[in-house]
């Protein structure tokens, strides 16, 4: 344990998925960190608009026409006029890891003034284990300078594979519309120098602005739902995915981390527009949280896809009565899995895990 080995670049194993409707100017600031990687751009909105990608990046770009062409009728599960469409990028990727970032997120500086290489930290988080079964008061025990505390059982110190790395944001915090309206000037200036595993059995609000995940371990569950045009709700895409993946990770013995890295979130979206989008969500989440907290998956759900289909059944059964939207969503969840399996035929990687233990 003398020297810390450098973090591998993983440039042939990681895709960066970026949803955009405007432009990709923000990539210029990320160039030193992103240039080695392949980008998957998912262009939302008007497909006839040409999105200019800065020179020197290796990328593939999909607009709505491409999505419709590739998925055919199954394209109905991919949202339109909402950044939820980014999950199409997860589906078409062929890589093991995904990093997704919003086009209004820039490189942040740590307290010493140094630029933060967010991607490198996400890779670190994903490559080292999580510890969901017992809380470590010194946070990530595998970090340089940290370790497990007294009382932490040795049998739990190997940890479990990390499926998701959830990063945070300096400057504009990820508040909901009511909070934005009450505190329009609040900025997140607190740099919390920690990564931690979210304990098993605990749900959290997953933000898609600065997110990394292991596509082989959890990809099929990263469906960002039906949002935007023609849907009664928006800004709950990442929330929905977060609740689903956490339930599945808890069931399959995988870990979810949150904390570092920080990015600099520059744009505060219009709180009144947000309020309209979130309005139903604010009421529905009061039902959704108890629902997800009580979901149990049977022991024979040993793959992510099986878990996800099972959740969709329970969504229809228990949330259909909250609003018909959830019936549509449950159907879309099934369509998503069908599309995923079509585009990612199993054989090599089936995400089947040895310990598909029931919750």
């Amino acid at each position, binding site marked *: 344990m003398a020297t810390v080995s450098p973090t591998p670049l993983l440039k042939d194993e990681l895709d960066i998925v970026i949803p955009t409707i405007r432009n990709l100017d923000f990539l210029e600031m990320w160039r030193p960190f992103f240039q080695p990687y392949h980008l998957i751009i998912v262009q939302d909105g008007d497909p006839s608009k040409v999105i200019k990608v800065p020179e020197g990046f290796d990328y593939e770009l999909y607009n709505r026409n491409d999505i419709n062409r590739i998925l055919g009728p199954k394209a109905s599960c991919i949202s339109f006029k909402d950044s939820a469409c980014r999950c199409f990028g997860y589906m078409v990727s062929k890589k093991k890891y995904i990093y997704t970032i919003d086009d209004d997120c820039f490189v942040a500086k740590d*307290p010493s003034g140094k630029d933060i290489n967010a991607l490198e930290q996400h890779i670190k988080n994903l490559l080292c284990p999580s510890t969901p079964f*017992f809380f470590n*008061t*010194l946070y990530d025990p595998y970090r340089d300078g940290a370790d497990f505390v007294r009382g*932490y059982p040795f049998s739990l110190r190997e940890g479990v594979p990390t499926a998701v790395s959830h990063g*945070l944001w300096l400057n504009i915090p990820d508040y909901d519309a009511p909070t934005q309206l009450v505190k329009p000037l609040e900025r997140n200036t607190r740099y*919390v120098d920690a990564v931690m595993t979210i*304990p098993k059995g605990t749900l959290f609000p997953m933000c898609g602005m600065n997110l990394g995940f292991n596509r082989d371990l959890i990809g099929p569950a990263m469906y960002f739902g039906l949002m935007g045009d023609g849907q009664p709700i928006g800004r709950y895409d990442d929330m929905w995915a977060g609740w689903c993946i956490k339930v599945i990770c808890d069931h399959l013995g995988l870990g979810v981390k949150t904390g570092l890295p920080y990015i600099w979130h520059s744009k505060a979206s219009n709180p009144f527009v947000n309020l309209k989008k979130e309005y139903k969500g604010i009421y529905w989440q009061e039902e959704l949280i108890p629902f997800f907290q009580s979901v149990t998956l049977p022991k024979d759900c040993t793959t992510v896809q099986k878990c996800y289909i099972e959740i969709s059944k329970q969504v229809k059964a228990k949330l259909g009565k909250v609003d018909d939207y959830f019936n549509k969503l449950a159907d879309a969840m099934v369509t998503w899995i069908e599309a995923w399996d079509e585009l990612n035929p199993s054989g090599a990687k089936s995400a089947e895990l040895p310990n598909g233990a029931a919750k």
Partner: protein
Amino acid sequence: MRTSPSLLSLTIDSAVLNLSNIADLSSLPDHIVVDLFLRTLRAGKLNERVLKLFIATGKDEVFSLIRALNIRATVIPVLPTTIKDDEIDIVIGAVRSDLTSFMNEWRPMFSRFHLIIVKDPDLKEELKIPEGFNLDVYEKPHMDQVVGSSTSVFFSGYACRYFGYLVSRKKYIISVDDDCLPARDPKGFVVDAVAHHITNLTTPATPFFFNTLYDPFAEGSDFVRGYPFSLRTGVKCALSCGLWLNLADHDAPTQALKAKQRNSRYVDAVMTVPAGSLVPISGINIAFDREVVGPALVPALKLAGEGKFRWETMEDIWSGLCVKVVCDHLGLGVKTGLPYVWRTDRGDPIASLKKEWEGVKLMEEVVPFFQSVRLPREATTVEDCVVEVANAAKERLGLTDPVFARAAKAMLDWVNLWKSVAYISSSSPAV
């Protein structure tokens, strides 16, 4: 006709108003620095940070003024205004006899409050405590008088502090080990651990859903998008666990393996440990609401080779697991994170490991046990909950190792002791 103020005078007045934006005064001529200093004093704007600013100029006149006016940098703790000083007890378990430097270092933070010092009954030497504190000292004779000898509850070693919890008459207790000193935050300011613990205990905890921006009640923070509104009022925080810079609370094998490792990472966050999630709560730096959760902090698990270094104990870990299980059942919160204390280097982990390694092995049984404890709905008081845990421990762990059978008995005795001895004010609310 009055002469209008000079441009220089107006500038200095403006500087006084904008002191918070000034980072360096050393480039100013001496006479301006002195003038600025005097006007700052007159305006009542001298605080620790501003004083540091003036001291950093290195000017002799500033130093003379400081000496002449007897200005001293003392930390004034900022407590929530709803808390009165007489609601707090600071309980120190004295495992070492000379507490002089410990008490003097903590003086700015401790001197406002009543202290309870409990001497480890195994300690032979007389306690050395400096003057100027409002305190009560308890030693073995007091313990014998209050507790009698017919109990398996033990107050030796680090567990001596529990006697202090028992005899305290205050609502909040803060307890730190006697080898811990005030820490400094990354900006160089001394951390007022007392005020910070009180803030943790008097703001709600949020155990039912994880907030990714950590403590939503901290300055500059809030609940994030997706956090259900019905869960935003939170629940009462019963326990606040702080952390340690320098010598972190690792077990002996870990510290022996990483002999030179010291914790220098200051993580600027407080968070609620989620309900259903267990955590090893170190006793080195804690605070709790005695009226709400007092009986659940149990001096129960005494290792066969228990000694006078934390590496040779697990009593606080057992106690903390018990508290967490009880809090989860009763809908109370446990927070972890800030404040930090500075834990001085002491002891030799290899020597401790040679002497006592059973504790580390026992955790393999202890943690699964606490994870499997289910408290019945009828257990609605803390005392009832502790009794349930004790009975479950006796039943499920009693045969694994006699230390567990003894721990279970000690827990039952502790609850009885608490019921007969502990002060319950008439105004203390039921949970």
